[in-house]
């Protein structure tokens, strides 16, 4: 049985992520210590809140270097959810310029400072997969729950696996580069399609 490790760095809601994976009977571990990362077959980095706070916590709990090792050297599959995905980027402009993991080239910026639209982007929105990719296999409505004010602008278009339109602004809603997958929405909160996406992540990168 493959083991899924949910990184617990005391930021945001890991309970829902755990319970969603458990739905399919996967073995789920909450990871509180960096040395436990190596025992998992899949990693999940969730989190809500502030980019800078997240980086500080990950470093404070010594997750930073070990995650780099597991993801870049050991090529362990990792799923980043919402802020988790944003942390994979080079840098973010939230609160102040902060460096991320840099696994995916690009920056995290505010959705729009100029256009007159409501921010945060909160609610259920349609995800449009680019080409056919197995992360979105068997979806019924491709509708997922979003809640964010910042979004990731990748430098390399080829890692984008889905886009979402919010009032005329394109949001990159999912990315994939080898063993690294990130989603801007919350699959653990997106009922049927969300559960299917989590299962697809495990099956695809198995």
């Amino acid at each position, binding site marked *: 049985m493959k083991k899924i490790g949910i990184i617990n760095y005391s930021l*945001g*809601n890991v*309970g*829902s992520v755990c*319970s*969603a994976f458990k*739905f399919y009977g996967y073995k789920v571990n909450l990871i509180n210590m960096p040395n436990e990362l190596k025992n998992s077959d899949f990693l999940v980095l969730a989190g*809500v*809140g*502030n980019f800078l*706070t997240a980086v500080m916590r990950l470093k404070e709990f010594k997750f930073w270097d070990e995650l780099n090792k597991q993801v870049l050297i050991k090529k362990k599959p990792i799923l980043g959810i919402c*802020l988790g995905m944003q942390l994979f980027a080079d840098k973010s402009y939230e*609160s102040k310029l902060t460096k991320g993991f840099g696994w995916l080239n690009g920056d995290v910026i505010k959705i729009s400072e100029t256009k*007159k639209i*409501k*921010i*945060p*982007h*909160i*609610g*259920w*929105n*349609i995800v449009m997969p680019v080409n056919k990719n197995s992360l979105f296999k068997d979806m019924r*409505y491709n*509708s997922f*729950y*979003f*809640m*964010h*004010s910042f979004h990731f602008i990748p430098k390399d278009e080829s890692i984008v696996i889905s886009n979402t*339109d*919010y*009032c005329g602004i394109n949001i990159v809603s999912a990315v994939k580069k080898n063993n690294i997958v990130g989603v801007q929405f*919350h699959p*653990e*909160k*997106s*009922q*049927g399609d*969300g*559960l299917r996406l989590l299962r697809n992540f495990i099956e695809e990168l198995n």
Partner: protein
Amino acid sequence: MISKRLIVQFLLKNKRLVKGTAFDGYVDVGDPTSQAMIYDAQGADELIIVDINASSQERIINTQIINEIINKCRLPIAAGGGIKDIRDAKKCFESGADKIVINSQAAINPEFIKILANEFGSQSVVVSVDVKKNKKGNYEVYIFSGSQRIDSKLENYLEKIVKYGAGEIIITSIDKDGVLSGFEYELYSRLKGMLAIPLIASGGAGCYDDMVRLFNESDCDACAIGKMLFLRDYDIVRIKSYLKGKGILVREA
């Protein structure tokens, strides 16, 4: 495009779900977890759960109930009741809430909104505002479950909330609460184009056309419904299919 949300609004008294009229006369309408599972299965877009006694009893909402719900449901949950510092908020998030709801504290200490937004991000902070229409036809803001009026004008108060970093606002009409006679349409249409963050209308939903009218006359992003689900013969599936038929963008589920 983003769809209009149908949010089920739960009020808790002790560990039970209750529903009243104009913030009074509460009756028991069931067990929160089993009810949440029903609306999750029907495809509700979100759940707001607020403990109405928490503030006065100087405690926070029962986080065990939030935890029970998130283990059985897969929809976003906003939780509130008695949250007055970062520790309280943290407890709610740790038990599984995706957002927290504050009401009286936002009026007493607006800085608190900023503190929460900095720590958890604006998208996780919902400010709940209760209003009543006065004799002159103006809307006045009330706190402590509708028992105390505050001085600022509604528009100014809302502006302030947004400025301090709230992620969403839910405005409840006390007069319409539990009356099932339709929303306070005038209020929401007055606010059209005014708010830079999502707005949720609450109080009065009693039939399909109430929601159609609300979404046509305002730019509300969501509406909260309660009694019509608990004590009348409506369900989320039928409401959504009706709204869809009237050209309102709702999420299929």
